[in-house]
């Protein structure tokens, strides 16, 4: 029997799962702090903008967002299946198209900084 190509999907799912569970809570906390006006100086708008403007910062942000999008697309696909929505191919296409659109949008927005 042929070996599966699922590692392509699962690789982003596993790596993205790690990112989401480790990095996302920090980003949410920082966003909340920013929203309430308590921004630590290292995370001021100017510093963050400078970080996102450099190629290294762009790369870091892209990897985080790309992996998060693909892992959550896969997570939602599996969740749909577990809840009885068994049109797996259709669900997979919708989810992965959303993740792809999000990835492209990430590239576009990062390029414009």
């Amino acid at each position: 029997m042929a070996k599966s190509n699922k590692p392509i999907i699962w690789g982003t799912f596993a790596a993205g799962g790690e990112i989401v569970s480790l990095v996302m809570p920090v980003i949410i906390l920082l966003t909340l702090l920013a929203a309430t006006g308590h921004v630590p100086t290292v995370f001021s708008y100017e510093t963050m903008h400078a970080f996102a403007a450099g190629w290294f910062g762009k790369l870091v942000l892209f990897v985080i967002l790309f992996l998060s999008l693909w892992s959550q697309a896969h997570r939602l696909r599996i969740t749909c299946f577990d809840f009885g929505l068994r049109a797996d191919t259709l669900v997979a296409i919708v989810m992965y198209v959303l993740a792809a659109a999000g990835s492209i949008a990430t590239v576009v927005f990062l390029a414009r900084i």
Partner: protein
Amino acid sequence: MTENRMGARQVELEVLRYNPETDQEPKFQRYSVPCINEWCVLDALNYLKDNLDPTLAYRWSCHMQVCGSCGMMINGEPKLACKAMLRDYPGTIRIEPLAHFPIERDLVSVADDFIAKLKRVKPYIISDGKHTIEQGEYKQTPAQLKRYRQFAMCINCMLCYAACPEYGLQPKFIGPAAISLAHRYNLDSRDVGRDERQEEIATNEGVWECTFVGACSDVCPKHVDPAAALQQVKVASTVDWYLEHFMSWVKK
């Protein structure tokens, strides 16, 4: 439930009965069995068969959680009948054969599917032939033993298959125990058979059918943690995939 001072108790059992030669479909039969509170469900079944109804069919052998024969659904949960203690079941106890398997008769499941899958994953040491019998035993360090010991505890009781919703949905799934045992031999320092096993388990109906529900590890009576084994196989298979497709010159 009645209980007297001797710690004895009249236990109500609802046992699934099915004789494929005479019955149209399985149905429950009720028994009232005089039991001692310290008995396990298997003791109650043995009393039942010896004294009340000799026609009841079920498998058992060791009565000490080693042979893996007496797996059955007890109040809807996959359990070894020798490990399920009556004192943990206050009311009527419902006993059925393992879920997801065809019924041979009464509480006896047809294990052919699992046995065939077990054979496919080659759960034995495939040696490179360099170590001869004349050289004596093949020594391992405690660290080498520790790598696979947990996964070697499997007794093939099939409780994990009865618990796995994926196996229920997709019977082609090679399943928790067989993949865990493949992993156990892959981790063995004396073994060189990983490539052969990957042909079976790194497939869509192999480890990639698993969605990490984790029910297998919940019900495993030997704490093998098949879910962990399958996740480790996924990580290793993903590394393999990238090496095979982008760095085929690197030896795995």
